[in-house]
């Protein structure tokens, strides 16, 4: 394409602005940067480091549970492992990796040069990063003056009164509280930035009805963050008041309520799932059309379904609490509202299928990950509907069935789409393609390992195995199932190692990508790969949802049909 040359010429411009001076100047450049792309990459890199750490914790737990009566780790260490694994994966892997992609992509996709508040963006990243460091610093400092316990061991939802000073002496729980608090502050800052960017910085012609679906979804996801992450911040402030100032919010001895903490936590905790899964939907919305060679089916329905999910997600939290004894009215309400979520979600699945239907499908790595996502997300949703039925939940609440269900969402849906996003946007970020061959290995090993682990994990749950036990007796009949689950974890580990190898190798040896390797349609592919620091030499103007389609097909632009 003739237009490639001008992009290359533009990419040469900013290099003259480099300051001299080796490693330190590089460090200084990254620490002081307010460029949305660099901050996005730091988010992603930091999340990948924590992904490896929290993955290793999961692996240790699977080794411990592989056979009955195992003494590989002590009960205390096991408690710390599942607490750290859960907290890290949610707050320091899921949130930052999704905010990282959002940071990188949102301004590029709406034709802007940066986020609305670049310095706030930098602050949000560093405060979240500090939260993650603080969580792991507890391994060194958690004993405090009392010498009891190191890392937090209260579980990722930290039910009262276990978190009170009496039952959790020392400082490990304080490290947990403060790190989650800081992560929450960073999340609100970035969410605010994303909404302000999308609402006020769109390029000329990009009406809200032409905004890429990924950007729409990030706006909706940020909206949920305002009303869902803040309650967690509030609850953490209360916990700090209880622990440091002698307050009684969750102190049952003084009339406080442990159930109130459960409500406050899950008012955050359940919408959090949608905060994490919505960006995965956003990736699917961008990737599936490009590899089916069709425009997305039902754009307005997709937007409406996202907003619908956001609203319904705020009214389902107590389905985590069916076993508390809330009474039939509350149980009926939360059963109903939880099932209602399946409606907008189902609309999305049908829209993706309709997009693929009759398309000229290219089975490149991003697409096969997306197809894996579609299947696995469906199954995850179905077990979700099962658990929404409160009598069923009474039997299986806090069992391995629940663990299998939510890992099906978090790994089978969200992680698969995160990998799809890596394969899809890596060429834009680095200028080189990821290896397709290694990508296929990564995909098939992960699919195999994932299903081996999480399909079979449902069974010990149905047989009555509770979550968070550090070991079990041989005569329970859970041993073989757990062994299969643990072996699956090994395949998943290998697949992630292949992925990391692919990331590093392709950075040096990958095929040169060019600005638009997938023949895609959104604005980020109109600039060079990697994009210059100012993104666009001249701000674009758009007149449809697929500006690059219009550019490539001036005889038949989308604007004729929208």
């Amino acid at each position, binding site marked *: 394409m003739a237009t490639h040359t001008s992009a290359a010429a533009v990419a040469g411009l900013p290099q003259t602005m480099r300051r001299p001076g080796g490693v330190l100047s590089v460090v200084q450049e990254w620490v002081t940067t307010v460029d949305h792309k660099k901050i996005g990459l730091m988010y992603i890199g930091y999340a990948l480091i924590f992904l490896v750490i929290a993955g290793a914790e999961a692996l240790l737990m699977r080794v411990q549970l592989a056979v009955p009566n195992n003494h590989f780790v002590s009960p205390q260490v096991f408690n710390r492992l599942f607490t750290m694994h859960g907290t890290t994966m949610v707050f320091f892997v899921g949130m930052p990796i999704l905010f990282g992609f959002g940071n990188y992509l949102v301004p590029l996709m709406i034709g802007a040069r940066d986020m609305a508040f670049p310095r706030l963006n930098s602050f949000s990243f560093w405060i979240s990063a500090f939260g993650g460091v603080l969580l792991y610093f507890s391994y060194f400092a958690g004993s405090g003056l009392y010498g009891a316990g190191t890392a937090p061991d209260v579980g990722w939802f930290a039910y009262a009164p276990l978190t009170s000073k009496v039952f959790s002496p020392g400082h490990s729980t304080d490290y947990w509280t403060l790190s989650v608090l800081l992560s929450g502050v960073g999340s609100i800052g970035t969410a605010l930035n994303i909404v302000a960017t999308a609402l006020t*910085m769109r390029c000329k012609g990009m009406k809200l009805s032409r905004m890429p679906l990924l950007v729409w979804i990030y706006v909706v996801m940020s909206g949920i963050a305002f009303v869902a992450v803040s309650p967690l911040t509030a609850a953490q402030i209360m916990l700090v008041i209880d622990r440091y100032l002698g307050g009684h919010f969750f102190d049952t001895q003084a009339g406080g309520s442990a159930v109130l903490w459960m409500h406050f936590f899950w008012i955050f905790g359940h919408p959090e799932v949608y905060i994490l899964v919505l960006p995965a939907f956003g990736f699917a919305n961008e990737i599936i059309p490009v590899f089916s060679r069709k425009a997305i089916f039902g754009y307005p329905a997709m937007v409406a379904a996202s907003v619908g999910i956001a609203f319904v997600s705020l009214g389902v939290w107590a389905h985590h609490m069916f076993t508390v004894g809330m009474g039939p009215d509350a149980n009926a309400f939360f059963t109903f509202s939880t099932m209602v979520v399946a409606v907008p979600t189902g609309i999305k699945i049908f829209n993706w299928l309709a997009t693929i239907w009759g398309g000229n499908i290219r089975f490149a790595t991003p697409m096969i990950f997306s197809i894996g996502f579609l299947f696995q997300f469906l199954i995850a949703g179905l077990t979700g509907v099962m658990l929404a039925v409160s009598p069923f939940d009474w039997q299986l609440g806090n069992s391995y069935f629940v663990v299998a269900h939510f890992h099906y969402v978090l790994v089978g849906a969200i992680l698969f789409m995160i990998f799809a996003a890596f394969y899809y946007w890596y060429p834009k970020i680095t200028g080189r393609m990821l290896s397709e061959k290694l990508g296929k290995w990564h995909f098939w090993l992960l699919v195999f390992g994932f299903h081996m682990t999480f399909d079979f994990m449902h069974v010990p749950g149905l047989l009555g195995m509770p979550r968070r036990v550090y070991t079990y007796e041989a005569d329970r009949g859970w041993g073989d199932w757990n062994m299969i689950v643990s072996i699956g974890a090994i395949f998943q580990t290998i697949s992630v190692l292949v992925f990391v190898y692919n990331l590093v190798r392709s950075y040096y040896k990958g095929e040169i990508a060019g600005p638009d390797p997938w023949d895609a349609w959104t604005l980020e592919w109109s600039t060079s790969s990697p994009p210059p620091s100012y993104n666009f030499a001249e701000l674009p103007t*758009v*007149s449809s949802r697929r500006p690059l389609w219009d550019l490539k097909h001036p005889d038949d632009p989308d604007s004729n049909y929208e």
Partner: protein
Amino acid sequence: MSTVAAVANPTGDEWKQPSRGMVGMACLIAAESAIFVIFVVAYIYYTGKSLSGPTPREVLNLPIFSTICLLSSSITVHFAVHELQGSRIGRFIAWLASTVLLGGIFIASTALEWYELIYHDGLTIRTNLFGTTFYSLVGLHASHVIAGLIMLGLALIFALQGKVNAHHTERFEVLSVYWHFVDAVWVVVFTVVYVLGR
């Protein structure tokens, strides 16, 4: 492909989007409101559940004067925005200074109230559930008032140095929206703590 991903389609009409300061502040207010909602819910939930005294009825007095001060500061800050827009800097400074003064009176009377409660009525944050929820909710609001006063105070200092002019109207308006929010929260806190909770 060029960096101009454009199909020549000049619509001609002006491309207008909302102010980013206002959108940012609206988002902040949404998030802050959620925090306050949780504290208000906790306050209401624990009303009358304290196992020991003192109770709200015994120790709380209606803070009518300071409430009037805080609510009128919303009006004065509104006038300040209006005067700044019209480039009447002298009047702007006067309205802004009275806003800071009224907010200061509010904070001072809260301090006085707390002093009475702690030293005369023996109510601290650890005394009972009422103490815990009262100091948390009122304190959370007071800390927002203090943050607002710091920002308004900075604006006042800049204005006295002659560095503020009509170009800064939009920024100051964003700040005034925050201040209106703090006042609105007080209406809720006042109703819950001093009217319903007593």
